[in-house]
Protein backbone atom coordinates (compact mmCIF):
# COMPACT_ATOMS: atom_id res chain seq x y z
CA UNK A 1 0.00 0.00 0.00
CA UNK A 2 1.35 3.37 -1.02
CA UNK A 3 1.81 6.32 1.27
CA UNK A 4 -1.66 7.85 1.67
CA UNK A 5 -0.30 11.40 1.50
CA UNK A 6 1.37 10.54 -1.79
CA UNK A 7 -1.79 8.86 -3.10
CA UNK A 8 -3.82 12.00 -2.45
CA UNK A 9 -0.95 14.28 -3.50
CA UNK A 10 -0.98 16.33 -0.31
CA UNK A 11 1.70 17.43 2.16
CA UNK A 12 2.01 15.64 5.48
CA UNK A 13 1.03 18.97 7.05
CA UNK A 14 -2.15 19.26 4.94
CA UNK A 15 -5.28 20.40 6.79
CA UNK A 16 -8.37 18.19 6.80
CA UNK A 17 -9.94 20.68 4.41
CA UNK A 18 -7.06 20.25 1.95
CA UNK A 19 -7.32 16.47 2.24
CA UNK A 20 -11.05 16.58 1.55
CA UNK A 21 -10.50 18.86 -1.45
CA UNK A 22 -7.76 16.61 -2.84
CA UNK A 23 -9.93 13.49 -2.46
CA UNK A 24 -12.88 15.27 -4.06
CA UNK A 25 -10.85 16.27 -7.08
CA UNK A 26 -9.31 12.82 -7.57
CA UNK A 27 -12.56 10.93 -6.88
CA UNK A 28 -14.23 12.92 -9.65
CA UNK A 29 -11.47 11.81 -11.98
CA UNK A 30 -11.30 8.17 -10.94
CA UNK A 31 -14.68 6.99 -9.57
CA UNK A 32 -15.43 3.79 -11.51
CA UNK A 33 -19.13 4.59 -11.82
CA UNK A 34 -18.26 7.84 -13.56
CA UNK A 35 -15.76 6.06 -15.84
CA UNK A 36 -17.41 2.75 -16.71
CA UNK A 37 -15.05 1.99 -19.60
CA UNK A 38 -11.87 2.52 -17.61
CA UNK A 39 -10.77 -0.79 -16.13
CA UNK A 40 -8.01 0.69 -14.00
CA UNK A 41 -10.37 3.24 -12.43
CA UNK A 42 -11.47 0.74 -9.81
CA UNK A 43 -7.99 0.02 -8.41
CA UNK A 44 -7.07 3.72 -8.52
CA UNK A 45 -10.26 4.68 -6.71
CA UNK A 46 -9.71 1.89 -4.16
CA UNK A 47 -6.29 3.36 -3.31
CA UNK A 48 -7.79 6.83 -3.11
CA UNK A 49 -10.62 5.92 -0.79
CA UNK A 50 -8.32 3.85 1.44
CA UNK A 51 -6.00 6.86 1.73
CA UNK A 52 -8.95 9.13 2.39
CA UNK A 53 -10.43 6.79 5.01
CA UNK A 54 -7.12 6.88 6.84
CA UNK A 55 -6.42 10.61 6.66
CA UNK A 56 -9.93 12.01 7.14
CA UNK A 57 -10.19 10.40 10.57
CA UNK A 58 -8.02 12.55 12.90
CA UNK A 59 -7.38 9.66 15.29
CA UNK A 60 -6.36 7.22 12.53
CA UNK A 61 -4.24 9.92 10.93
CA UNK A 62 -2.50 10.64 14.26
CA UNK A 63 -1.80 6.95 14.74
CA UNK A 64 -0.49 6.61 11.18
CA UNK A 65 1.77 9.68 11.62
CA UNK A 66 3.04 8.24 14.89
CA UNK A 67 3.84 4.96 13.13
CA UNK A 68 1.33 3.02 15.23
CA UNK A 69 -0.61 1.77 12.22
CA UNK A 70 0.41 1.46 8.62
CA UNK A 71 -1.47 2.26 5.47
CA UNK A 72 -2.36 -1.38 4.82
CA UNK A 73 -4.70 -1.26 7.80
CA UNK A 74 -6.94 0.91 5.69
CA UNK A 75 -7.07 -1.54 2.82
CA UNK A 76 -10.40 -3.15 2.29
CA UNK A 77 -12.17 -4.93 -0.49
CA UNK A 78 -14.45 -2.46 -2.12
CA UNK A 79 -18.17 -3.04 -2.32
CA UNK A 80 -19.38 -3.72 -5.83
CA UNK A 81 -19.72 -0.58 -7.87
CA UNK A 82 -22.87 0.48 -9.65
CA UNK A 83 -21.18 0.03 -13.01
CA UNK A 84 -20.69 -3.66 -12.23
CA UNK A 85 -24.46 -3.96 -12.46
CA UNK A 86 -25.41 -1.24 -14.94
CA UNK A 87 -22.65 -2.38 -17.26
CA UNK A 88 -22.84 -6.04 -16.39
CA UNK A 89 -23.93 -9.02 -18.45
CA UNK A 90 -26.75 -9.81 -16.03
CA UNK A 91 -28.60 -6.85 -17.46
CA UNK A 92 -27.67 -7.62 -21.04
CA UNK A 93 -28.46 -11.23 -21.76
CA UNK A 94 -27.14 -10.96 -25.31
CA UNK A 95 -23.58 -10.91 -24.09
CA UNK A 96 -23.53 -14.51 -22.93
CA UNK A 97 -25.33 -15.77 -26.01
CA UNK A 98 -22.67 -14.48 -28.29
CA UNK A 99 -19.76 -16.24 -26.71
CA UNK A 100 -18.64 -13.34 -24.58
CA UNK A 101 -18.33 -14.14 -20.92
CA UNK A 102 -18.98 -10.54 -19.92
CA UNK A 103 -19.39 -7.08 -21.27
CA UNK A 104 -15.82 -6.46 -20.29
CA UNK A 105 -14.86 -8.71 -23.19
CA UNK A 106 -17.12 -6.74 -25.50
CA UNK A 107 -15.44 -3.62 -24.19
CA UNK A 108 -12.11 -5.07 -25.21
CA UNK A 109 -13.46 -5.95 -28.65
CA UNK A 110 -14.82 -2.44 -28.97
CA UNK A 111 -11.65 -0.70 -27.94
CA UNK A 112 -9.66 -2.82 -30.35
CA UNK A 113 -12.07 -1.93 -33.11
CA UNK A 114 -11.76 1.77 -32.38
CA UNK A 115 -8.04 1.79 -31.85
CA UNK A 116 -7.16 0.08 -35.09
CA UNK A 117 -6.44 -3.18 -33.33
CA UNK A 118 -8.77 -4.88 -35.79
CA UNK A 119 -5.91 -5.19 -38.25
CA UNK A 120 -4.37 -7.86 -36.06
CA UNK A 121 -5.64 -11.39 -36.11
CA UNK A 122 -8.57 -11.75 -33.78
CA UNK A 123 -7.13 -12.94 -30.46
CA UNK A 124 -8.68 -13.90 -27.21
CA UNK A 125 -10.21 -11.33 -24.92
CA UNK A 126 -8.49 -10.67 -21.66
CA UNK A 127 -10.06 -9.73 -18.37
CA UNK A 128 -8.72 -9.49 -14.84
CA UNK A 129 -10.19 -12.03 -12.37
CA UNK A 130 -12.50 -10.96 -9.57
CA UNK A 131 -11.30 -10.09 -6.08
CA UNK A 132 -12.49 -12.37 -3.30
CA UNK A 133 -12.66 -11.75 0.43
CA UNK A 134 -12.50 -14.02 3.44
CA UNK A 135 -12.66 -13.65 7.21
CA UNK A 136 -10.05 -15.58 9.16
CA UNK A 137 -10.38 -16.18 12.92
CA UNK A 138 -6.94 -15.84 14.52
CA UNK A 139 -5.92 -16.93 18.03
CA UNK A 140 -4.77 -14.02 20.20
CA UNK A 141 -1.19 -15.30 20.55
CA UNK A 142 -0.88 -15.99 16.81
CA UNK A 143 -1.86 -12.37 16.13
CA UNK A 144 0.56 -11.09 18.79
CA UNK A 145 3.55 -13.19 17.72
CA UNK A 146 2.80 -13.74 14.04
CA UNK A 147 2.03 -17.09 12.44
CA UNK A 148 1.37 -18.78 9.15
CA UNK A 149 -2.06 -20.28 8.57
CA UNK A 150 -3.41 -22.34 5.75
CA UNK A 151 -6.99 -21.71 4.76
CA UNK A 152 -8.99 -23.98 2.53
CA UNK A 153 -11.33 -22.24 0.15
CA UNK A 154 -14.77 -23.60 -0.70
CA UNK A 155 -13.52 -24.79 -4.08
CA UNK A 156 -10.79 -26.88 -2.39
CA UNK A 157 -7.89 -24.54 -3.14
CA UNK A 158 -5.60 -23.78 -0.19
CA UNK A 159 -4.03 -20.43 0.62
CA UNK A 160 -1.04 -19.73 2.85
CA UNK A 161 -1.74 -16.66 4.95
CA UNK A 162 1.15 -15.05 6.77
CA UNK A 163 -0.22 -13.29 9.83
CA UNK A 164 2.19 -10.47 10.66
CA UNK A 165 3.52 -10.05 14.20
CA UNK A 166 1.28 -7.63 16.07
CA UNK A 167 -1.68 -8.09 13.71
CA UNK A 168 -4.70 -6.05 14.77
CA UNK A 169 -8.30 -7.20 14.94
CA UNK A 170 -10.13 -6.50 11.64
CA UNK A 171 -6.82 -5.93 9.87
CA UNK A 172 -7.09 -6.63 6.17
CA UNK A 173 -4.39 -8.57 4.36
CA UNK A 174 -4.16 -8.50 0.62
CA UNK A 175 -2.90 -11.60 -1.15
CA UNK A 176 -2.03 -10.41 -4.59
CA UNK A 177 -3.15 -12.66 -7.39
CA UNK A 178 -4.94 -15.13 -5.10
CA UNK A 179 -8.46 -14.18 -6.22
CA UNK A 180 -10.44 -15.64 -9.11
CA UNK A 181 -8.43 -16.57 -12.20
CA UNK A 182 -8.31 -14.06 -15.03
CA UNK A 183 -10.02 -14.69 -18.34
CA UNK A 184 -8.05 -15.25 -21.52
CA UNK A 185 -4.65 -14.74 -19.91
CA UNK A 186 -5.75 -11.76 -17.85
CA UNK A 187 -4.24 -11.29 -14.41
CA UNK A 188 -6.00 -13.06 -11.51
CA UNK A 189 -7.85 -10.98 -8.92
CA UNK A 190 -6.65 -10.45 -5.36
CA UNK A 191 -7.78 -12.19 -2.18
CA UNK A 192 -8.54 -10.04 0.84
CA UNK A 193 -8.37 -11.70 4.23
CA UNK A 194 -9.86 -9.92 7.23
CA UNK A 195 -8.32 -11.07 10.49
CA UNK A 196 -10.71 -11.62 13.38
CA UNK A 197 -8.49 -11.77 16.45
CA UNK A 198 -10.10 -13.84 19.18
CA UNK A 199 -9.99 -12.68 22.79
CA UNK A 200 -7.53 -14.41 25.13
CA UNK A 201 -8.58 -15.86 28.48
CA UNK A 202 -6.24 -13.54 30.43
CA UNK A 203 -4.22 -11.33 28.09
CA UNK A 204 -5.70 -8.08 26.82
CA UNK A 205 -4.01 -5.93 24.22
CA UNK A 206 -4.26 -2.14 24.14
CA UNK A 207 -2.11 0.31 22.15
CA UNK A 208 0.69 -2.21 21.81
CA UNK A 209 0.79 -3.03 25.53
CA UNK A 210 -0.35 -6.32 27.02
CA UNK A 211 -2.45 -6.12 30.17
CA UNK A 212 -2.83 -9.07 32.46
CA UNK A 213 -4.21 -9.54 35.96
CA UNK A 214 -2.05 -11.86 38.09
CA UNK A 215 -3.27 -13.36 41.37
CA UNK A 216 -0.76 -13.35 44.27
CA UNK A 217 -1.07 -14.86 47.74
CA UNK A 218 -1.38 -12.71 50.83
CA UNK A 219 2.13 -13.80 51.84
CA UNK A 220 3.66 -12.93 48.44
CA UNK A 221 2.02 -9.49 48.50
CA UNK A 222 2.97 -8.70 52.09
CA UNK A 223 6.50 -10.10 52.18
CA UNK A 224 7.43 -9.69 48.53
CA UNK A 225 8.35 -12.59 46.26
CA UNK A 226 9.93 -13.71 43.02
CA UNK A 227 7.08 -15.17 40.98
CA UNK A 228 6.64 -16.59 37.51
CA UNK A 229 4.12 -14.80 35.24
CA UNK A 230 2.95 -15.57 31.70
CA UNK A 231 3.89 -13.26 28.81
CA UNK A 232 2.93 -13.57 25.15
CA UNK A 233 6.32 -15.18 24.48
CA UNK A 234 6.40 -17.48 27.49
CA UNK A 235 6.80 -17.37 31.31
CA UNK A 236 9.08 -14.75 32.87
CA UNK A 237 10.24 -14.22 36.49
CA UNK A 238 9.21 -10.99 38.12
CA UNK A 239 9.72 -9.50 41.58
CA UNK A 240 6.65 -8.60 43.61
CA UNK A 241 7.83 -5.79 45.91
CA UNK A 242 7.28 -6.14 49.64
CA UNK A 243 3.90 -4.82 50.74
CA UNK A 244 2.23 -4.77 47.32
CA UNK A 245 -1.53 -4.43 47.09
CA UNK A 246 -4.36 -5.50 44.84
CA UNK A 247 -4.22 -3.05 41.94
CA UNK A 248 -0.44 -2.56 42.13
CA UNK A 249 0.83 -2.44 38.56
CA UNK A 250 4.19 -3.97 37.63
CA UNK A 251 5.70 -3.19 34.26
CA UNK A 252 7.66 -5.70 32.23
CA UNK A 253 9.57 -3.62 29.71
CA UNK A 254 9.28 -4.62 26.07
CA UNK A 255 7.19 -7.70 26.66
CA UNK A 256 4.23 -6.30 24.71
CA UNK A 257 3.38 -6.30 21.02
CA UNK A 258 6.06 -5.32 18.53
CA UNK A 259 5.26 -2.30 16.41
CA UNK A 260 6.39 -3.44 12.98
CA UNK A 261 7.02 0.12 11.86
CA UNK A 262 9.38 1.12 14.63
CA UNK A 263 10.48 -2.38 15.67
CA UNK A 264 9.82 -1.35 19.27
CA UNK A 265 7.92 -3.64 21.59
CA UNK A 266 5.22 -2.35 23.91
CA UNK A 267 5.26 -3.34 27.58
CA UNK A 268 3.40 -5.87 29.64
CA UNK A 269 1.47 -4.34 32.52
CA UNK A 270 0.71 -6.72 35.36
CA UNK A 271 -2.04 -5.81 37.79
CA UNK A 272 -1.71 -7.71 41.04
CA UNK A 273 -4.74 -9.22 42.71
CA UNK A 274 -4.45 -10.59 46.21
CA UNK A 275 -6.24 -13.88 46.82
CA UNK A 276 -6.80 -15.23 50.32
CA UNK A 277 -6.57 -18.99 50.90
CA UNK A 278 -9.58 -20.91 49.60
CA UNK A 279 -10.19 -22.66 52.90
CA UNK A 280 -10.20 -20.95 56.29
CA UNK A 281 -6.83 -20.77 58.07
CA UNK A 282 -7.50 -21.01 61.83
CA UNK A 283 -4.16 -19.39 62.84
CA UNK A 284 -4.71 -16.45 60.51
CA UNK A 285 -8.24 -15.98 61.80
CA UNK A 286 -7.03 -16.15 65.40
CA UNK A 287 -4.33 -13.60 64.63
CA UNK A 288 -6.70 -11.19 62.88
CA UNK A 289 -9.17 -11.34 65.77
CA UNK A 290 -6.55 -9.93 68.10
CA UNK A 291 -4.70 -7.79 65.58
CA UNK A 292 -4.58 -4.02 66.15
CA UNK A 293 -3.33 -2.28 62.96
CA UNK A 294 -0.83 0.55 63.55
CA UNK A 295 -2.61 2.75 60.97
CA UNK A 296 -6.36 2.98 60.98
CA UNK A 297 -7.87 1.24 57.94
CA UNK A 298 -10.60 3.22 56.18
CA UNK A 299 -10.71 1.69 52.68
CA UNK A 300 -14.24 2.96 51.85
CA UNK A 301 -13.83 6.45 53.23
CA UNK A 302 -13.68 8.18 49.84
CA UNK A 303 -16.76 6.34 48.60
CA UNK A 304 -18.94 7.43 51.46
CA UNK A 305 -18.19 11.14 51.82
Amino acid at each position, binding site marked *: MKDPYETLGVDRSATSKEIKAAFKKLARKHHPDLHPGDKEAESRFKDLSAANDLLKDPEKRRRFDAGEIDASGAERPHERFYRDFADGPAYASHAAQDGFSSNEDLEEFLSR*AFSGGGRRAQGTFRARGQDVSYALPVAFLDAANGATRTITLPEGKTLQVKIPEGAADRQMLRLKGQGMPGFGGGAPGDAYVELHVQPHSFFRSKDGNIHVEVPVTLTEAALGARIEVPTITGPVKVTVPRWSNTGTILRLRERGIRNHKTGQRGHQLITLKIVIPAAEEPELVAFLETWEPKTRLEPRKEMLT
Partner: protein
Amino acid sequence: MTGIDALVAAISALQRNDLEAWLRDELVSAEPDAGTLAFSDMECARVRFICTLHYDLEIDAETLPVVLTLADQLYETRQRLFSLTAAVAAQDEPIQKAIIAALSPGNRSPETE
Protein backbone atom coordinates in the same frame (compact mmCIF):
# COMPACT_ATOMS: atom_id res chain seq x y z
CA MET B 1 -32.02 -7.88 -0.90
CA THR B 2 -31.03 -5.47 1.84
CA GLY B 3 -33.51 -3.80 4.19
CA ILE B 4 -33.54 -0.03 4.52
CA ASP B 5 -32.26 -0.16 8.13
CA ALA B 6 -29.38 -2.46 7.21
CA LEU B 7 -28.44 -0.25 4.27
CA VAL B 8 -28.41 2.92 6.40
CA ALA B 9 -26.29 1.06 8.97
CA ALA B 10 -23.87 -0.28 6.33
CA ILE B 11 -23.00 3.09 4.76
CA SER B 12 -21.73 5.31 7.53
CA ALA B 13 -22.15 8.59 5.66
CA LEU B 14 -25.72 7.85 4.56
CA GLN B 15 -28.46 9.88 6.24
CA ARG B 16 -31.83 8.16 6.36
CA ASN B 17 -33.80 11.28 5.41
CA ASP B 18 -31.57 11.76 2.33
CA LEU B 19 -32.26 8.18 1.26
CA GLU B 20 -35.99 8.72 1.75
CA ALA B 21 -35.82 11.88 -0.38
CA TRP B 22 -33.98 9.97 -3.14
CA LEU B 23 -36.71 7.32 -3.03
CA ARG B 24 -39.41 10.00 -3.31
CA ASP B 25 -37.57 11.58 -6.24
CA GLU B 26 -37.22 8.11 -7.81
CA LEU B 27 -33.43 8.35 -7.99
CA VAL B 28 -33.34 4.90 -6.43
CA SER B 29 -36.03 2.27 -6.11
CA ALA B 30 -36.89 -0.24 -3.42
CA GLU B 31 -39.43 -3.01 -3.08
CA PRO B 32 -41.92 -3.27 -0.24
CA ASP B 33 -40.93 -6.16 1.99
CA ALA B 34 -42.86 -7.17 5.12
CA GLY B 35 -43.91 -3.64 6.03
CA THR B 36 -40.51 -2.14 5.25
CA LEU B 37 -38.40 -1.48 2.15
CA ALA B 38 -35.77 -3.71 0.59
CA PHE B 39 -33.08 -2.86 -1.95
CA SER B 40 -31.62 -5.16 -4.59
CA ASP B 41 -27.82 -5.48 -4.80
CA MET B 42 -27.88 -3.23 -7.82
CA GLU B 43 -29.88 -0.55 -6.02
CA CYS B 44 -27.52 -0.78 -3.02
CA ALA B 45 -24.59 -0.13 -5.35
CA ARG B 46 -26.54 2.78 -6.84
CA VAL B 47 -27.13 4.22 -3.36
CA ARG B 48 -23.37 3.97 -2.69
CA PHE B 49 -22.70 5.76 -5.97
CA ILE B 50 -25.15 8.54 -5.03
CA CYS B 51 -23.52 8.78 -1.59
CA THR B 52 -20.12 9.38 -3.21
CA LEU B 53 -21.62 12.01 -5.52
CA HIS B 54 -23.49 13.77 -2.74
CA TYR B 55 -21.29 13.44 0.35
CA ASP B 56 -17.76 13.23 -1.12
CA LEU B 57 -18.06 15.17 -4.36
CA GLU B 58 -20.56 17.57 -2.75
CA ILE B 59 -23.00 17.54 -5.63
CA ASP B 60 -26.05 19.22 -4.14
CA ALA B 61 -29.57 17.81 -4.05
CA GLU B 62 -30.77 19.88 -7.02
CA THR B 63 -27.87 18.89 -9.29
CA LEU B 64 -27.89 15.22 -8.28
CA PRO B 65 -30.77 14.20 -10.61
CA VAL B 66 -29.02 15.93 -13.54
CA VAL B 67 -25.80 14.01 -12.96
CA LEU B 68 -27.69 10.73 -12.48
CA THR B 69 -29.73 11.22 -15.63
CA LEU B 70 -26.52 11.73 -17.60
CA ALA B 71 -24.93 8.67 -15.98
CA ASP B 72 -28.05 6.61 -16.76
CA GLN B 73 -27.91 7.72 -20.37
CA LEU B 74 -24.23 6.77 -20.50
CA TYR B 75 -24.97 3.27 -19.19
CA GLU B 76 -27.96 2.88 -21.52
CA THR B 77 -25.80 3.89 -24.48
CA ARG B 78 -23.10 1.49 -23.40
CA GLN B 79 -25.66 -1.33 -23.24
CA ARG B 80 -26.74 -0.55 -26.80
CA LEU B 81 -23.13 -0.47 -27.88
CA PHE B 82 -22.57 -3.86 -26.26
CA SER B 83 -25.61 -5.22 -28.14
CA LEU B 84 -24.25 -3.83 -31.36
CA THR B 85 -20.81 -5.28 -30.70
CA ALA B 86 -22.29 -8.64 -29.83
CA ALA B 87 -24.24 -8.57 -33.09
CA VAL B 88 -21.03 -7.82 -34.99
CA ALA B 89 -19.20 -10.58 -33.16
CA ALA B 90 -21.93 -13.04 -34.19
CA GLN B 91 -21.27 -12.40 -37.88
CA ASP B 92 -18.95 -14.40 -40.12
CA GLU B 93 -15.30 -13.44 -39.85
CA PRO B 94 -15.03 -11.53 -43.19
CA ILE B 95 -17.99 -9.35 -42.18
CA GLN B 96 -16.49 -8.77 -38.73
CA LYS B 97 -13.16 -7.81 -40.24
CA ALA B 98 -14.81 -5.46 -42.72
CA ILE B 99 -16.73 -3.69 -39.94
CA ILE B 100 -13.66 -3.42 -37.73
CA ALA B 101 -11.60 -2.14 -40.63
CA ALA B 102 -14.28 0.43 -41.40
CA LEU B 103 -14.22 1.60 -37.79
CA SER B 104 -10.45 1.83 -37.61
CA PRO B 105 -8.87 5.27 -37.42
CA GLY B 106 -8.12 6.68 -40.83
CA ASN B 107 -10.95 4.67 -42.40
CA ARG B 108 -13.78 6.53 -40.78
CA SER B 109 -14.01 9.54 -43.07
CA PRO B 110 -15.69 8.97 -46.46
CA GLU B 111 -12.70 10.53 -48.35
CA THR B 112 -10.47 7.56 -47.62
CA GLU B 113 -12.89 4.96 -48.89
